[in-house]
């Protein structure tokens, strides 16, 4: 994919205006040396990238023009030390004042002393109280802080504070080899390791003008759909469990485990980490792997419909999920929310179809959407996607022809860059990779779909009861590590 490159302040403001007007969709915003960059999907489906040189470290805030850019802009300012002029929210995001330095990708100014304080947004009124939750939560989940303002049981305001799992991935990427970059990309969000590895590899391959062999594309597709299946089984079970229906969790947990075992039998790792590499895939389908995958398809097609029927016929369960945590279609559209979160609120978008990358460009599949935008709708979108993934794996296995699985990466003729997408189970992963003339990574920006879903959870929970927050949160299932990087 060759984007439209635009530059300068006029184009920057024009991009913000077009996104705010709904003529284009925000993709990502990130810093680079001496400039800010914003990527958007144009109305005609093209990718546009706008470069804005910073003026003595400052730039006009994109968040002031288009709200969804806000957290990414705060993160970029933390990493580079840039100042976003006119920004609606000047608080730091990733930088909690606990690193030995400021601006790790910029001047790396030394810092010591107490951590920064953080001023949470307020809600005032008779009887309102605050409930602070996290960063260490009650369950086996990632760390983050949720600040509730509640009136009785009703949530008046939820504010998220993330960044706790910030590992400095962007700085580790700088100067790394492509091979190490792939390892790091596969550990941005472990539940989406295949999708990240695909997005990173495709960006590198596009930058170097390399197309992997057809068998590699198909094997990547099989791995990506296995990852989607495992996560959707897990999420459907966990959502029901948060509505006190543990039987679904038990059954979905069995299906999830069977999926991971099939993945291990086929590709030698339960989560398929480090199996997708720039140039192709690191391992071929193991002997007996295809049989394991076909056995999984048969098992899932027998078992899963019964679980769906159980969900559909259990009124007490639906009582919790229907009408809960409604995400309005308008908000999903404004934020360009991807994945089941966006699709359950009517946003008919899927990177596999709409950024049409192999092997999906040659395969027929349906993109499921729903209109209601509640927890129930997010369950049904996942249910439909399970069926599509099973069919896709079967179709890809049928097309697998013998052949090479990996092509050698050429040395770059000069510094180069490229952009790529992959549809993870929770939405589109965007990768922007810039290589130096010696082939090392000069800059790698990876944007998880959760960046544009977390803020919507704050909106969707408003007016719901505190006790339904776990249910709503699980139905979004945002990645912490994927955004904290």
């Amino acid at each position, binding site marked *: 994919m060759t984007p439209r490159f635009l530059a300068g302040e006029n184009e920057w403001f024009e991009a913000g205006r077009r996104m705010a007007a709904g003529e284009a969709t925000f993709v990502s915003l990130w810093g680079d040396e001496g400039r800010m960059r914003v990527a958007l999907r144009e109305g005609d489906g093209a990718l546009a990238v706008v470069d804005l040189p910073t003026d003595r470290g400052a730039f006009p805030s994109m968040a002031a023009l288009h709200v969804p850019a806000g957290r990414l802009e705060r993160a970029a300012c933390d990493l580079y030390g840039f100042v976003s002029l006119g920004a609606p929210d000047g608080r730091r995001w990733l930088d909690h004042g606990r690193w030995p330095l400021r601006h790790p990708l910029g001047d790396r100014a030394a810092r010591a002393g107490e951590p920064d304080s953080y001023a949470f947004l307020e809600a005032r009124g008779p009887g309102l109280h605050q409930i602070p939750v996290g960063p260490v939560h009650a369950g*086996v989940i990632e760390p983050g802080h949720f600040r509730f303002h509640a009136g009785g049981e009703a949530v008046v305001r939820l504010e998220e504070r993330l960044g706790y799992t910030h590992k400095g991935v962007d700085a580790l990427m700088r100067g790394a080899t492509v091979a190490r970059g792939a*390892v790091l990309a596969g550990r941005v969000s472990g539940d989406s390791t295949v999708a990240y590895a695909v997005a990173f590899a495709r960006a590198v391959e596009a930058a170097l003008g390399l197309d992997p062999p057809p068998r590699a594309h198909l094997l990547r597709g099989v791995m990506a759909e296995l990852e989607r299946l495992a996560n959707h089984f897990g999420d459907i079970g966990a959502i029901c469990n948060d509505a006190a229906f543990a039987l679904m969790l038990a059954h979905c947990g069995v299906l999830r485990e069977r999926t991971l075992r099939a993945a291990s039998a086929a590709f030698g790792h339960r989560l398929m980490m480090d199996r997708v590499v720039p140039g192709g895939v690191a391992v071929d389908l193991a002997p007996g792997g295809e049989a394991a995958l076909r056995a999984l398809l048969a098992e899932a097609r027998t078992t899963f419909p019964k679980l769906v029927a159980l969900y559909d016929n259990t009124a007490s369960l639906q009582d919790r999920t229907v009408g809960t945590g409604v995400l309005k279609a308008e908000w999903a559209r404004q934020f360009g929310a991807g994945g089941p979160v966006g699709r359950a609120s009517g946003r008919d978008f899927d990177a596999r179809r709409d950024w049409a990358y192999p092997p999906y460009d040659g395969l027929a599949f349906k993109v499921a959407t729903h209109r209601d935008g509640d927890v129930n709708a997010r369950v049904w979108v996942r249910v439909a996607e399970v069926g599509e993934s099973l069919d896709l794996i079967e179709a890809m296995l049928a097309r697998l022809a013998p052949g090479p699985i990996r092509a050698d990466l050429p040395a770059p003729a000069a510094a180069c860059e490229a952009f790529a997408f992959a549809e993870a189970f929770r939405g589109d992963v965007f990768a922007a990779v810039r290589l130096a003339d010696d082939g090392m990574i000069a800059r790698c920006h990876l944007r998880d779909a959760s960046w544009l879903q977390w803020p919507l959870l704050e909106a969707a929970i408003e007016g719901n009861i505190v006790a339904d927050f776990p249910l709503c949160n699980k139905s979004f299932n945002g990645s912490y590590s994927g955004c904290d990087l």
Partner: protein
Amino acid sequence: MRDALLQGLRAPLTEPPPADDDPELLALAATVKEATQRTLGRSLAIRHVDAGSCNGCELEIHALSNAFYDVERFGFRFVASPRHADVLLVTGPVTLNMREALVRTYAATPAPKWVIASGVCAADGGVFAESYAVAGGVAAVLPVDLVIPGCPPSPTALMKGLLALMRGAK
């Protein structure tokens, strides 16, 4: 239909426990300084703390509770509060943004207590070790009783580690 649904779980899914002389189990047990069984009998309450993992470790910790591994049969329970815990099961390279939360969780755990560093990141920082943003493993912050390697450790490896901790050095 409900009978059919329950039938699926009654099938013999549960993995047999590792043998007493399983080499991985013995190797892990040899690294543990003190046997928890002597102190607590066959009951171990586990508080998981994600100190900045990529969430891969959490997926496999979750799997410990599925019908295949079902670690409650050995007396392991995941608890919601460190105040109810005997063991902290820590994942991730310990990001500096999580360091204080981890230390405070440890302080809130009543003695006697044990710390497991689970996964290569918790062991030594893993691929994130050189970063400005991480402490570089749990041992940099807390006394560690057991390291379970893996990226992520499989549920089987986790199960063996927990059993090793319970059994302790022979």
